[in-house]
């Protein structure tokens, strides 16, 4: 690498982190496979070990990037590649949730009515599932896992929507405060955002306990149970990840990182939080209400 090209692009250290991440992922999935297939071992300790390695990798790798950024080693070219990285990351996220929302729409709009005898499904219904109405919410014509009740959207989900919306308002205030170089306000509102996110996760866990214990609504409750828990569960994981990211950003603001004119790390995390909130709004509307 010549001196001239070094000026255009910062060439990083000989990174050990990608291989650490690969080992972490392999161990995680081996552990998950072991946990799913084993009849003797209930605790997926191998999977937890893998998750531990991934967390170690993230902590180490991101820490190095933050350090290099603060040492002003990055130029505009690196800034562009961070922004490109963000857009590809979000693209994969949109595709991910698109697939699960798509599954929900397809089941509700097409397959369930077909099984109930609508349109081209008339003979299917009469020959195979006679008497099945095909009305949403349903666990399918096989009545998988038996009768269930659904979560009342105007109790816990309503509170959770309010909490997550409030957290988006607080992070927006923090965002404006950072741009105005008001660091104290930024820190206060960021902490408020993390607290609201944590309460959301707590209530989500409460809702799952309620669904399993009181309503007999489980992951195994046919198409409704599958789509409900896949969508809300993965969303919950994203809220958890977002809350961790905001915690890191808060520590960075406390340490004096970011400037009003240059704060991509902050802005990307703030955007991610808004994204997670919009996904929840979609869930609230399409899973709980409509």
């Amino acid at each position: 690498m010549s001196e001239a090209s070094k000026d255009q692009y910062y060439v990083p250290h000989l990174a050990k982190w990608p291989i650490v991440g690969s080992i972490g992922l392999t161990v995680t999935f081996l552990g998950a496979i072991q946990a799913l297939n084993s009849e003797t071992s209930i605790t997926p300790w191998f999977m937890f070990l893998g998750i531990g390695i991934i967390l170690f990798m993230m902590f180490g790798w991101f820490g190095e990037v933050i350090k290099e950024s603060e040492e002003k080693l990055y130029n505009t070219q690196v800034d562009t590649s961070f922004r490109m990285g963000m857009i590809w990351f979000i693209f994969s996220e949109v595709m991910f949730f698109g697939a699960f929302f798509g599954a929900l729409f397809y089941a509700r709009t097409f397959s369930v009515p077909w099984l109930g005898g609508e349109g081209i499904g008339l003979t299917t219904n009469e020959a195979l599932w006679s008497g099945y109405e095909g009305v949403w919410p349903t666990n399918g014509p096989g009545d998988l896992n038996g009768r269930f009740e659904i979560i009342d959207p105007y109790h816990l989900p309503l509170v959770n929507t309010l909490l997550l919306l409030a957290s988006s308002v607080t992070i927006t205030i923090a965002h404006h405060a950072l741009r105005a170089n008001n660091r104290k306000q930024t820190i206060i509102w960021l902490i408020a955002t993390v607290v609201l996110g944590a309460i959301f996760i707590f209530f989500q866990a409460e809702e799952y306990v309620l669904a399993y214990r009181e309503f007999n609504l489980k992951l195994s409750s046919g198409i409704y149970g599958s789509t409900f828990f896949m969508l809300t569960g993965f969303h919950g994981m994203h809220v958890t990840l977002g809350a961790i990211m905001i915690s890191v950003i808060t520590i960075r603001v406390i340490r004096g990182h970011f400037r009003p004119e240059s704060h991509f790390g902050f802005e990307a995390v703030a955007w991610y939080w808004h994204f997670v909130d919009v996904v929840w709004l979609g869930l609230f509307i399409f899973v709980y209400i409509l």
Partner: protein
Amino acid sequence: MKYFIIVIFLFIVFSLGSAMFYLVKGKGQSQNTVRFLTVRVAISVLLFLFIIFAAYMGWIEPKQPPFLAPN
């Protein structure tokens, strides 16, 4: 009513997408990212209030599995 809620939701997604566009293009100098994010939060809060109001007025029917619905 259903379609009205969906249209507003799509507008929220559009605001979020616009914020992303300026996040990638803006190089941190422009106010557009934070502006679009503020718009999207404001509309989301309004939509949330509208949903509560619509449910209160009975414009949105609560759903139940058919085997639990009163005959």
